């Protein structure tokens, strides 16, 4: 977690470490509580199965999104920053299933004048010597089973340079 990923060490095609998570009802309850979410589909099995016709209660889409973002920020390290993050909801996930959150580097570029926002981020501009930063684009996804896609997406991360 505290390991730092540096821009120079990344190549297009690199995979980030897979985050494998099996969500259970307790984690789902805490996520509902932390997001003030009263949607019965996430805790009321009778409602989810008999009224909505699902085989079980559903893992929250935002929890899947948060886990996928966690896979990216864990890889990016403490001096990395999530600049952009886009996902689509494709399929349902259920408690007890192993979910995997994966990513592959699709591009890298200098953090130049065309990407001003990341430079205004307001952090990591002191402390260790600053050798500049670069942007890395990723294709990311949540999946389960035999590579069934739950949540495809893309992310851009700003990484420090070794200098």
């Amino acid at each position, binding site marked *: 977690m505290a390991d730092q990923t540096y821009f120079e060490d990344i190549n297009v095609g690199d995979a980030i470490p897979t985050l494998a998570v099996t969500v259970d009802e307790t984690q789902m309850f805490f996520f509902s*509580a932390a997001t003030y979410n009263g949607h019965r589909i996430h805790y009321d099995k009778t409602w989810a199965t008999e009224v909505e016709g699902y085989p079980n209660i559903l893992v929250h889409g935002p929890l899947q999104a948060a886990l996928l973002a966690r896979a990216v920020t864990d890889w990016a390290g403490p*001096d990395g920053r999530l600049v*952009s993050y886009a996902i689509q909801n494709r399929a349902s996930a259920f408690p007890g299933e192993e979910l995997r959150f994966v990513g592959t580097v699709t591009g890298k570029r200098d953090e130049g004048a065309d990407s001003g926002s990341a430079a205004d981020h307001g*952090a990591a501009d002191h402390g260790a010597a600053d050798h500049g930063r670069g942007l890395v684009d990723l294709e990311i996804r949540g999946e389960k089973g035999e590579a069934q896609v739950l949540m495809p997406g893309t992310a851009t991360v700003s990484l420090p340079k070794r200098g």
Partner: protein
Amino acid sequence: MSTQESLIPPEATKLIGTEQARAAGIVEKKQFQRWAAAVKDRNPLYFDADFARAHGYRDVIAPPLYVQYVTLGITDPDALRPDGTPGGGAGDIPLPACPRRMAGGENWQFHAPLYDGDVITATRRIEDITEKSGRSGRFVLVTWLASYRNAGGELVAEARSSMIARP
């Protein structure tokens, strides 16, 4: 066969471009740490102020995706829909021909970190409502743009999100 009637009534079309919601809230450390704990995201930037300072921040920061929860209001349990969701949001767009709703996607841009005590104002605008045709038939795609600003008016995050409504 007569021309198919649009799935989007004029009352919905006129909402395009309008501000649908505005809300303010305060970033609270314990709240975003509870969120991170529920995700089992033990990133020390969210929990350890000394660690965060050593990496250029002035305090612990909130997980980026947490920003969408800062401005949540109070829900009256007696005013919920039968499925436990509050009214408002997508429910305010009159699409009577399309009762089946599902989340589409979201696209976030993060511009600045969030700290405990930051006052955030969120505005949500309906960017577009369009009819589409896919493999499973006709549907309506609704797109919103949410902007999150701090007390100084600085844009800290933006999110474009979508919903699919089907007949």
